[in-house]
C-alpha cells in the first residue's frame, strides 16, 4: 500500500495537516469498527466508550503522525525507500512536519499560548461564578468541569510552553549548534503534543471530566467518559515530553560548539538540561498513573478500588512522584529565563554562576524525594510526615541559591528597564511571595489547616504563573526581535507589563486571606462572608484577562508590520544575538567558537564567541 501523499497534498500549504487528519480519522474509525466487531463476536455490548476509544485512539494517533510526515519524511527510510526532503518556506513551514528547531519552537509557543488564552477564558468563567457565594452561572458539576479543564490546560501550558517553545528555539542557538540532536524526533514531539488540545476539546462531547487536574482515584475511575480522553491527553503529552527531554539531554551533551564548556553554558540552557533530566525519567510515572486508572476503568482492574483491596493512596504516590518534579519543570525554566534576562539587562555577570547551577542541580536531585508533601492529610505515618517535611524544607536551600543569584546580579547593576527586564524583575518579586508562602504548606502543622484551600491556589499561582509564566513573557519580549526580525511597541509592552503585574497581584494576593479564612478550592459555592474578598479576586482576574488583549494586539501587529529589528538590539553577548534576526536555517553562516563566558560584561574587549574557520584551530566544521 502506498501511503505517500499526492503531489497536491504535499505542496498545498495545509496538505500535510489535512492528510494527517484524514489518515488519522480513517485509522481511528477502522480500529473502532474492528474493536466493536470483536466485542460483538465475543458476545459483549459492542458500543462502549472506554474500550473502543482507548483502543482506537492509538491507531488514530499513529495515522495522524504517519500522515503528517512521519511516513513520507522518515519511516520510508527504514524500508530503504526514498524520503521526501522538500522543505517549505515562509509561513507554510509552521503547518508542516518541519525539522528546523526554530520553526518547532514557534509552533510550540503559538500552540501553547493559544491554549493559555483559552484556559484564561475558563478562569474568567470561574471568577464570574465566584462573584457571589451562591450559584451564578454553573451547576456544581459544570463548575467542576470548567475548573478541571482550566487546571489541566494550564498545567500542560506550564510544562510545555517555555521548554517546548524557548527550549527548542533558543537552546541549539545558545550552544552554537545547527539544530537539535534528533530533528525529526523533535518534529514528532510537537505533532504529538498537537493532539493534546484536540483531546481536551473532545472531552466536551464525552460528558466532560470533573476530577481536577490531579484526577485522584476513585473519582477518576468512576466519573464520566471525558476522563478517558483526559488520561489519553496526559499520556500523549508525556510521550512528547519524554522524546523532547531525551533530545535536549543529547543535544546539550553532544552538540555544543567548540569552547562551549559546561561552565560557559547560559543559565537557561542549564535549566532546560536539568529539567530534561527530570522529564525523561519521571514522566513515565504519570503515564503509569494514567494507565492504571484506565486499566481500572476499562479492564476491570482494581489498583485503586478499595472494595477489592486496592488502594487510592497508590494513585497519589505514583501521581505525585511525577507531578512534584513536574512543578519544577513548570517553574525553573521560566525562573532561569528571568536570570538570563536579568544578567543581560543589568550589564553584569550572573552573580555566583556556579552556585546557581548547583542550585538548579540541587533542585533536580531533591525534587525526587519530596512528593508526599502533597499528601500530608492523606493518612501517612508520622515517620513519613517528618521525612517529607525535612526534604521539602531542605529544597529551599538550592532554591534560595537561585534567588540569591538573581538578587546579586541586580545589586549595583546598571539596570535597563525595558519590558523583558520588567517581567524578569516581576519574577523575582512574585517568586519571593510564592516561596515564602510555600513554607506554610511544607509544614504539616500549618498544612493541615491550609490543605485544599485557596491558600494553596494562591501559592501555586505565585510560583508557576508568577515565575514560570512571567518568565515566559520575559522570554517573549526578549526574543521577539530575534524570532520575528521585527520590533514591538515598547509603550504597549510596558502597558501590558504594568497592567498584568498589578492585576496578577490583585487577583492572587487576596486568595491567601480567602484560604486562611477557610475558602475551599474546587467548589462552586462558598459562605457569604467571603464575598468581598472574592469580588476583589474576580475584578483582579477580569483585569488580568483584559491585559492580554494589549499583548495580543502588540505582538500580532508588530509581527506583521513592526519596524525591522537589528541583529542585536539588546547589545547582549550570547550566541543568538551574534547571528541575523531571524537566524538563517542552521543558525550561523560560519562555525562559532566560544572563547569566554556568556555574561562577561564589564570586559568589553572580549567577545563570547568568534566566527569563521581561521579562528578555529581544530579545523572541524
Amino acid at each position, binding site marked *: 500500500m502506498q501511503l505517500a501523499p499526492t503531489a497536491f497534498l504535499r505542496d498545498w500549504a495545509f496538505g500535510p495537516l489535512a492528510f494527517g487528519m484524514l489518515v488519522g480519522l480513517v485509522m481511528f474509525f477502522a480500529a473502532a469498527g474492528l474493536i466493536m466487531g470483536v466485542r460483538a463476536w465475543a458476545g459483549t455490548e459492542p458500543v462502549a466508550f472506554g474500550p473502543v476509544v482507548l483502543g482506537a485512539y492509538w491507531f488514530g494517533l499513529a495515522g495522524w503522525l504517519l500522515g503528517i510526515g512521519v511516513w513520507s519524511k522518515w519511516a520510508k527510510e527504514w524500508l530503504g525507500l526514498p524520503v521526501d526532503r522538500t522543505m517549505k518556506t515562509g509561513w507554510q513551514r509552521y503547518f508542516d512536519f518541519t525539522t528546523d528547531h526554530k520553526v518547532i519552537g514557534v509552533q510550540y509557543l503559538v500552540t501553547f499560548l493559544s491554549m493559555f488564552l483559552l484556559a484564561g477564558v475558563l478562569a474568567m468563567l470561574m471568577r464570574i461564578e465566584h462573584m457571589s457565594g451562591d450559584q451564578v452561572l454553573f451547576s456544581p458539576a459544570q463548575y467542576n468541569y470548567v475548573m478541571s479543564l482550566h487546571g489541566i490546560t494550564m498545567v500542560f501550558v506550564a510544562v510545555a510552553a517555555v521548554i517546548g517553545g524557548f527550549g527548542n528555539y533558543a537552546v541549539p542557538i545558545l550552544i552554537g549548534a545547527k539544530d537539535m540532536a534528533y530533528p525529526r524526533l523533535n518534529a514528532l514531539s510537537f505533532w504529538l503534543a498537537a493532539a493534546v488540545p484536540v483531546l481536551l476539546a473532545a472531552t466536551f462531547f464525552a460528558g466532560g471530566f470533573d476530577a481536577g487536574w490531579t484526577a485522584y482515584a476513585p473519582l477518576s475511575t468512576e466519573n464520566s467518559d471525558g476522563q478517558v480522553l483526559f488520561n489519553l491527553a496526559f499520556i500523549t503529552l508525556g510521550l512528547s515530553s519524554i522524546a523532547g527531554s531525551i533530545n535536549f539531554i543529547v543535544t546539550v551533551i*553532544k*552538540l555544543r560548539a567548540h569552547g562551549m564548556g559546561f561552565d560557559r553554558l547560559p543559565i537557561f540552557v542549564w535549566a532546560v538540561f536539568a529539567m530534561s533530566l527530570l522529564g525523561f525519567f519521571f514522566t*513515565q510515572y504519570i503515564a503509569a498513573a494514567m494507565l492504571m486508572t484506565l486499566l481500572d476503568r476499562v479492564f476491570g482492574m482494581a*489498583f485503586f478500588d478499595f472494595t477489592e483491596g486496592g488502594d487510592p493512596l497508590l494513585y497519589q504516590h505514583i501521581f505525585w512522584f511525577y507531578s512534584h518534579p513536574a512543578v519544577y519543570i513548570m517553574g525553573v525554566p521560566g525562573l532561569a529565563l528571568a536570570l538570563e534576562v536579568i544578567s543581560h539587562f543589568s550589564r553584569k555577570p550572573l552573580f555566583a554562576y556556579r552556585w546557581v547551577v548547583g542550585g538548579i542541580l540541587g533542585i533536580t536531585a531533591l525534587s525526587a524525594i519530596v512528593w508526599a508533601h502533597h499528601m500530608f492529610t492523606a493518612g501517612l505515618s508520622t515517620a513519613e510526615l517528618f521525612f517529607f517535611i525535612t526534604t521539602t524544607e531542605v529544597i529551599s536551600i538550592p532554591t534560595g541559591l537561585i534567588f540569591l543569584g538573581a538578587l546579586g546580579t541586580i545589586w549595583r547593576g546598571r539596570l535597563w528597564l525595558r519590558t523583558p527586564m520588567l517581567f524578569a524583575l516581576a519574577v523575582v518579586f512574585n517568586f519571593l511571595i510564592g516561596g515564602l508562602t510555600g513554607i506554610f504548606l511544607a509544614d504539616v502543622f500549618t498544612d493541615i489547616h491550609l490543605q485544599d484551600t485557596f491558600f494553596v491556589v494562591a501559592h501555586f499561582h505565585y510560583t508557576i504563573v508568577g515565575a514560570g509564566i512571567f518568565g515566559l513573557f520575559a522570554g517573549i519580549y526578549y526574543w521577539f526581535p530575534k524570532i520575528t526580525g521585527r520590533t514591538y511597541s515598547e509603550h504597549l509592552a510596558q502597558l501590558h507589563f504594568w497592567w498584568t503585574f498589578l492585576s496578577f497581584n490583585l487577583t492572587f494576593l487576596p486568595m491567601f486571606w480567602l484560604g486562611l479564612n477557610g475558602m475551599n478550592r474546587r467548589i462552586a459555592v462558598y459562605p457569604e462572608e467571603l464575598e468581598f474578598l472574592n469580588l476583589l479576586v474576580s475584578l483582579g482576574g477580569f483585569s488580568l484577562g483584559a491585559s492580554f488583549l494589549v499583548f495580543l494586539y502588540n505582538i500580532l501587529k508588530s509581527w506583521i508590520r513592526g519596524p525591522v529589528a537589528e541583529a542585536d538590539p539588546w547589545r547582549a553577548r550570547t550566541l543568538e544575538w551574534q547571528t541575523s534576526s531571524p537566524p538563517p536555517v542552521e543558525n550561523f553562516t560560519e562555525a562559532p567558537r566560544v572563547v569566554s563566558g556568556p555574561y562577561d560584561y564589564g570586559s568589553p574587549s572580549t567577545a563570547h564567541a568568534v566566527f569563521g574557520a581561521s579562528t578555529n584551530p581544530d579545523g572541524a566544521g
Partner: protein
Amino acid sequence: MSTSTYTAHDSHAINSMGLWLFIVSETALFSAFIFARYYLTGTDQPSELNIGLGYAITAVLLSSSLLAYGAERRIAKGDRRGFLWLTLGTIVLGALFLVGVGLEWREAAHAFAPPDLFGVVFFSLTGLHATHMVTGLIALCFVWLVGWRGGFGATDHWGVTGVVRYWHFVDAVWLTVFPTLYLV
C-alpha cells in the same frame, strides 16, 4: 558528515546515547508497576501460579537474546546469511515466548482473574512486558526485512544494534518481572 552541529561528531554515539536514555526512561514505567505489585499484594502468590511454565518461557527468552547477540555479531562481520537466520531465530523464539505468556494468561484467567489483586498486578505487569515484546518483534521484523533487501553492512548497522539492544533490555525487564511475580 556533520548535519546538526558545527563540531565534528559521531552520529553513532549520538543515536546510542538517545537509546540508552530511552531505556533508562522505560525502567521508570516498569518500576511503577513493580512498586504497585509490592504495595498492593506484598509478596503474596496464589498457589495456582504455573512456575514451571514461567521457567520455560524465561529460558526461551534468554535464548532469543543469545541469538540476537549472534545476529549483531554476524552483520558486523559482513555475514548477511548468518545475520538473517539468527534474526529469524530471535523472532521465532520471541513469538514462542508470547505463546507461553498466552498459555499463562489462560490459566490465570481461571485462577485469579481481576479484580483479584494478584490478577491485577499479574496481568498488568505481564501485559506491559508483552506490549514491549510485540514492539520489539515488529522492530526485529523490520530489521530482517531491511537486511533481506540488502540493507545494513559490516560498517553500517546501527538499526540492528539499536533494535538488538532494545531486545536485550526487554529481556532484562523480564528477568525482573519474573522473580517479582513468581519467585519472591
